[in-house]
């Protein structure tokens, strides 16, 4: 694995390798000294063209925990604001010889283009409405810890699927791990043709009880002005996940930040079924695992590889 550009390009074995690695970092996180020397002397660039709190902070902390040198660039105040093209910014950063570039960008395909322009391993931390693979991996990690396997589980992704990169990456990731996915939301916020990705489509919560996991998406307030929904009140009445709609055995997830009272009721957020704070905690170890797999895994044999264990399949080759 040279880059992490999207879940689409990963085999199930590659996904599992990252999740296994994250488990070993979870163990490190319980020690007093949480830092390991793996990436000492190597440089990680964090390049964020969009506001982000949890993704940028957890990637940056992950790089530090692995002892990498970190350069953190936010678009406000950087030369991107002065009209520099992405390509020229990449050329500039290449002067630091970074081992990895973690990029968040408002447009689809940006990470892929950076991968073509740079020698560094590129991690897509969200490109437009396209993919957000590290989010999908941390969600898989969180669910696996709770459920063991996702094989045959039913997962409902509820809300603004149209504008959500999380929905797209998770839809592919959940299915790759054997789950059955239904996307649910008002018809205006479900992209035409999404069934081709192998999911079911629902326009009401009527059959929500069949779900083992309910994954709610953030509903942005400006969607109302664009006539995607008549009002947030009507949206909440039809699609809010609350403790009345959520059964006692169903798990609840959300990529954050939550609009309490819109896509989720406050009670649901704080309910024992909610995995939301576990998702945040998983973010750090999974992002450490991603950097490790990209930068260090090929340099020395994995510590616990048994006899006959299969090597991860490289990107671009059939699993």
């Amino acid at each position, binding site marked *: 694995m040279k880059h992490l550009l999207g879940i689409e390009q990963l085999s199930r074995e590659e996904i599992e390798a990252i999740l296994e690695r994250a488990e070993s970092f979870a163990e490190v996180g319980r020690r007093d000294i949480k830092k390991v020397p793996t990436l000492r002397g190597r440089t990680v660039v964090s390049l964020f063209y969009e506001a982000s709190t949890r993704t940028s902070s957890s990637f940056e902390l992950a790089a530090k925990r692995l002892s990498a040198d970190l350069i953190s660039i936010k678009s406000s105040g950087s030369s991107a604001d002065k009209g520099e*093209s*992405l*390509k020229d910014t990449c050329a500039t950063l290449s002067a630091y010889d970074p081992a990895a570039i973690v990029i968040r*960008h408002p*447009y*689809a*395909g*940006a990470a*892929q*283009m950076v991968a073509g322009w740079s020698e560094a391993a590129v991690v897509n931390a969200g*490109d*437009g*409405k*396209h*993919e957000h693979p590290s989010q999908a991996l941390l969600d898989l990690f969180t669910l696996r810890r709770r459920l063991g396997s996702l094989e045959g589980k039913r997962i409902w992704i509820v809300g603004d699927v149209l504008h*959500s*990169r999380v929905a*797209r990456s998770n839809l592919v990731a959940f299915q790759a791990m054997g789950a059955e996915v239904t996307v649910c939301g008002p018809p205006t916020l479900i*992209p*035409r*043709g*999404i*069934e*081709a*990705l192998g999911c079911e489509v629902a326009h009401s919560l009527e059959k929500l009880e069949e779900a083992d996991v309910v994954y709610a998406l953030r509903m942005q307030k400006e969607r109302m002005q664009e006539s995607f929904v008549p009002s947030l009140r009507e949206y909440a009445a039809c699609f809010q996940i609350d403790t009345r709609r959520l059964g006692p055995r169903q798990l609840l997830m959300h990529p954050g930040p939550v609009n309490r009272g819109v896509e989720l009721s406050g009670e649901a957020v704080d309910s024992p079924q909610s995995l939301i704070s576990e998702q945040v905690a998983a973010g750090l170890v999974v992002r450490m695992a991603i950097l490790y797999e990209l930068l260090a895994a090929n340099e020395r044999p994995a510590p616990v590889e048994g006899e006959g264990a299969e090597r991860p399949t490289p990107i671009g080759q059939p699993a």
Partner: protein
Amino acid sequence: MRSGEGADLVLRRATVLDPVAGIEGAHDVRIRDGQIAELAAPGTADAAGAEEVDAEGLHAFPGFFDPHIHLRTPGHEHKEDIETGTRAAAAGGYCGVIAMANTDPPVSSKADVEALREAAREQACVQVGFLATVTRGMEGEELTEMAALRDAGALGFSDDGLPIRSARVLRRALQYQHLCGGTIALHEEDPELSGDGVMHEGPVSAALGLAGIPSVSESTMIARDAALAGYENGRIHVQHLSATESVDAVRAAKAAGVEISCEASPHHLCLTDEEVRSLDPRSAKMNPPLRSESDRQALIEGLREGAIECIATDHAPHAPEEKEVPFEQAAMGVTGLETAFAAVHTHLVLPGVLDLALVVERMAGGAAPFGLERPSLAPGSEANVALCDLGAEWTVGEEGYESRSDNSWCAGQTLTGRVLMTVAGGQVAYRLRSFSLGVAT
């Protein structure tokens, strides 16, 4: 076009195909003083004083005609100009082209048209017709001085690049057309429906998270404008059809007796939205967007049965920095003049989807909708010839481009069929550099 010496040529033993003139078979094509003088039996034409070309095994077609290209001048000469754009046309076998008016500033005044025609007389190596905009500055509000523009030599009118949003404005233009003539060419798109879309709306846009442009954003406007043209007895030409619903809308308008013609581009005939999965804007981002396989099939069928009368490239050059950016930020459009025939030949003729004769006919079908004479190989006609080697394989872009821009939709593809020589307006406009004009023996 530049004035120059009329060609004196013998295309010895060429395989001549002009389906409209009913010419098919091996002939010596004798071109004298820029005219098709004679089609003689192979090996018999008198070559005295003429350059002799060994055309055995090569095809001579009537020169192609493209009713929809962007020469980018004035204002964007870093992408293309009259000289480079017409050179690209000649390299593709075109003897004539029509340049769109969405330049910077747009071609909206008499002086603009006169300046362009003057420049073409100095720089163009094929015949160039210029359209003027329908509305002043392409702002969609007020009509240009259409009669004065026609007097200055504007071939017709188009706000191409943008639709005419207001039905009222288009209706006035169609009424005014009775005074000044000139076909109105329409870029059909309802911006309310296309919104901020960057590709066809469907499973691929859903998978990529890109905003979609629904097929109906095109077809609903075609239906509206065809109804207006019918009501006002106007003459319209629909540009770059992309969707099944659009072909149906044109068919319905024709059945109702509306004076309407239309075009399809090689990229819409050869590619689908699957291409966008590469997220490479150089080859896959244009407006209208590449659509689904069923849309592509509908265009092919429309071309075959005549609902679509011509192939037009919508040649749209862009500089590298406008294309080397993420897909959503990139400029719309691809170049196509140099590859149109070869691409259609490779992707549609060789696999048996379309007949060679039909493609040759449609490659020059864009002249008539603008009131121009169709290029012909019949003796007595002005010499307009595309001489092609249908067996030659070449890789697009390997030797660079005649165009100033390199955003070709088929860059890197190996195509079969190549234009070796073009005669345009009676003059030799192009010879492939490596094609030696050895004297036939």
